[in-house]
């Protein structure tokens, strides 16, 4: 008996040793190799090498991480309200979320484009798209704040956006959902083929201040436009869009939009389009869209409704739009750093087709057309093809590039990144991702000058990567080094919302320009309190304007009486600090909106409509000094009929009455 126990224990021991040495290289923990920890480690107080600007997906926001540490630095509110930062709650920011549909408090931000000059990151702006209520936002990279949001008319959903041209001449917007437009909009849904149209919009970006304007739209057949990339270098002047649902299905697209072996990559000659616009060939259409701009001097946004857009029709204006057949339901559509190669990634295809720009030009020149699709020439597949990457993996989605002639393609179904050589289309390496990768990011990957060094996977499924938090899990990203022959997993890090596309840019292109404070001398807010002497409370009918200042650690005024039921009280709070990282907050009991978070030198306004009489506390919400807990005050609310005079003060010695 004893020997049986001995043998079995011995056996178990041997088994352990075998497991120990085998240790599953591609298991759930994965073989993280050698120096991984050191490569992703940024010691306390030191800085990361790259900023990673990441789309927040269904959170509607944009997040900022450090690479290689994966540390989260900031969530920039863009399309969704953020009570913490008062985005969409303060009077100054409410106009930013205005649309032709009124105030829209949420959206779905999918893609990032960082501005470029001559095809190279210049660190000026980040653009993001709203997929649901079609819009484009521009974020200023000196303040990391959303400075502009432009709504896109004639669009049912803005997915293939906000990709940019080489010198940020244009940012584009392509309709994911084609819709009936131009007046005839109340039509049966199954009249898709006759009545539904798509558009792509070219939005000009002012070279000096970044202001966006819709330069022109191109009217297109009703299909789904998915992703896009501008040409660069030799293909500068062209833009490429992937399209699916060339079947023109309006229901059960899962099946009905997957019938054909090939859909299209659309090539647009936007220089030609510009010529047509200059020649007056565009048609003015009456539309309705909002254009919202935030001004960092008045610390306020304005929203303007615009009513006109120029539309070009390629059926009547030849030489501007071509289709190229692409297997099958293409998603990613990426141009390599030289601009010669366009990589289409058919979600359902078994190959990755790579198109040659030189061949595209030749095919157009020789009219090497296969057919027409709704009046637009379709080029012959073989005539424009550089070649196919064979058996690369399952479910190719997106491709990024390094500066050594390699491409990195994400594979959703087989959950991996595959590295392949552009020149001879051979696969050279593959690594698993955890799990089901969507987009991926090589620093500078979409530009003429990739910075390389890392590839980051943004995964759709998280499962067991982190400590579980119930049914809803954080999203999972993975960092890999690509500076050797083999890709190596370095780090897992959690992300907010659902990241889709992201870009990474060297810290040195942004860090030195980062704004630390807003100068009080430049504060042009109409309700600014520039010095405590200017603090006051004014009544205009039922509107009460409180000109309030905050500095460590008191408000002026901090006692207000004479507010009456039915009043609309506007607290215009100016932060008089001029030191970096000393924001003050402001909150008042019962406010139906949010707090204010006011940066040094800034003025922000909270509207308060008290619904009962009494004395209401207000206080600073951002820990500002040793006496932060003392930074508070009271507001007295009396019945509408009361005779309590309007008074305000800070410190017993300075009560004042309205003049």
């Amino acid at each position, binding site marked *: 008996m004893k020997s049986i*126990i*001995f043998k079995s*224990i*011995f056996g*178990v*021991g*041997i088994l*352990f*040793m075998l*497991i*120990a*040495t085998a*240790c599953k290289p591609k298991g759930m923990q994965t*073989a*993280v*190799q*050698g*120096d*991984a*920890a*050191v490569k992703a*480690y940024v*010691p*306390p*107080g*030191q*800085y990361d090498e790259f900023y990673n600007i990441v789309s927040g997906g269904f959170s509607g926001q944009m997040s900022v991480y450090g690479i290689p540490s994966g540390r989260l630095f900031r969530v920039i509110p863009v399309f969704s309200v953020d009570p913490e930062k008062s985005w969409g709650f303060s009077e100054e920011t409410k106009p930013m979320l205005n649309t032709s549909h009124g105030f829209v408090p949420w959206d779905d931000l999918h893609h990032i484009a960082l501005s470029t000059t001559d095809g190279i990151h210049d660190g000026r702006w980040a653009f993001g798209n709203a997929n649901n209520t079609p819009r484009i936002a521009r974020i200023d990279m000196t303040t990391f704040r959303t400075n502009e949001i432009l709504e896109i008319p004639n669009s049912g959903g803005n997915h293939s956006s906000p990709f940019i041209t080489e010198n940020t001449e244009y940012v584009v917007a392509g309709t994911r959902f084609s819709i009936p437009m131009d007046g005839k909009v109340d039509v049966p849904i199954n009249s898709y083929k006759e009545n539904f149209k798509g558009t792509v919009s070219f939005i000009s970006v002012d070279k000096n201040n970044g202001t966006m304007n819709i330069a022109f739209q191109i009217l297109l057949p009703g299909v789904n436009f998915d992703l896009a990339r501008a040409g660069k270098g030799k293909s500068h002047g062209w833009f490429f869009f992937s399209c699916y649902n060339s079947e023109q299905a309006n229901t059960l697209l899962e099946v009905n939009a997957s019938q054909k072996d090939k859909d299209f990559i659309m090539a647009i000659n936007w220089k030609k389009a510009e010529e047509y616009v200059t020649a007056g060939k565009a048609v003015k259409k009456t539309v309705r869209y909002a254009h919202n701009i935030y001004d960092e001097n008045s610390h306020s946004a304005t929203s303007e409704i615009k009513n006109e857009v120029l539309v070009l029709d390629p059926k009547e204006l030849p030489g501007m739009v071509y289709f190229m057949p692409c297997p099958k339901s293409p998603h990613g559509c990426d141009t390599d750093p030289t601009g010669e190669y366009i990589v289409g990634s058919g979600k359902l295809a078994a190959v990755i087709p790579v198109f040659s720009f030189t061949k595209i030009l030749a095919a157009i020149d020789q009219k090497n057309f296969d057919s027409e699709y709704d009046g637009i020439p379709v080029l012959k597949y073989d005539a424009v093809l550089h070649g196919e990457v064979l058996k690369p993996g399952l479910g190719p989605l997106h491709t990024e590039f390094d500066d050594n002639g390699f491409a990195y393609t994400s594979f959703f179904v087989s959950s991996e990144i595959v590295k392949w050589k552009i020149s001879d289309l051979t696969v050279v390496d593959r690594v698993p991702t955890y799990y089901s990768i969507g987009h991926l990011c090589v620093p500078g990957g979409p530009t003429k000058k990739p910075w390389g060094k890392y590839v980051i996977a943004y995964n759709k499924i998280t499962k067991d990567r982190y400590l579980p938090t119930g049914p809803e899990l954080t999203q999972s990203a993975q960092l890999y080094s690509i500076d050797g022959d083999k890709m190596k997993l370095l780090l897992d890090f959690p992300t907010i919302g659902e990241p889709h596309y992201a870009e990474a840019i060297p810290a040195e292109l942004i860090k030195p320009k980062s704004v630390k*404070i807003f*100068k*009080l*001398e430049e504060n042009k807010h109409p309700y600014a309190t*520039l*010095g*405590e*002497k200017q603090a006051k409370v004014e009544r205009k009918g039922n509107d009460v304007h409180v000109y309030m*200042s905050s*500095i*460590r*650690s*008191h408000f*002026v005024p901090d006692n207000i009486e004479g507010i009456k039921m039915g009043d609309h009280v506007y607290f215009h709070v100016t932060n*008089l*600090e*001029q*030191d*970096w990282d*000393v924001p003050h907050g402001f909150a008042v009991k019962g406010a139906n909106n949010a707090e204010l978070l006011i940066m040094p030198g800034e003025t922000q306004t909270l509207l308060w409509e008290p619904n009962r009489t009494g004395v209401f506390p207000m206080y600073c919400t951002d820990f500002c*000094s*040793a*006496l932060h807990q003392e930074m508070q005050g009271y507001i007295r609310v009396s019945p509408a009929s009361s005779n309590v005079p309007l008074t305000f003060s800070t*410190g017993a010695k300075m009560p004042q009455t309205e003049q």
Partner: protein
Amino acid sequence: MKSLINFVFLCLISMMLACSGGVKKEIPQVDLAKITENQPEIHGTLVEDKDIVINNPLKQDWVSTGKNIYELKCLACHKLSDEKLVGPGWSGVTKKRQPSWILNMITNVDVMLETDEEAQKLLEQCLVRMPNQNISAEESRQILEFMFHNDGQK
């Protein structure tokens, strides 16, 4: 039997060692000088008394510019009397302190709080760090002129 348990234990240990497969636990040496290189504390050069020209009579345009800056950036914490609010009142400050001390407190407050005993005493009394109010050297000199004016100089 005990040796058997030891054997199993050893096996488990060896499994754990093998599974941590080559992860070197090397943490790079932290170089403090390099870390703090990115966090400058000095916002300008320290001013010395010999650099300061005292005007007699006072420059009235400096007095009035100084007063405007005071109302925008200083008044919230400093009264013109000798009463302490957040920081000490300004009455008598030009008699109690050297001009260079005053200018450095305005433009180089981090250095002063680190090195100057008088500044440190004030922090203990007030418990709020004198903030950097983003005031240039030229502006600080105008504020000083206003302080002289506040102390009755002509």
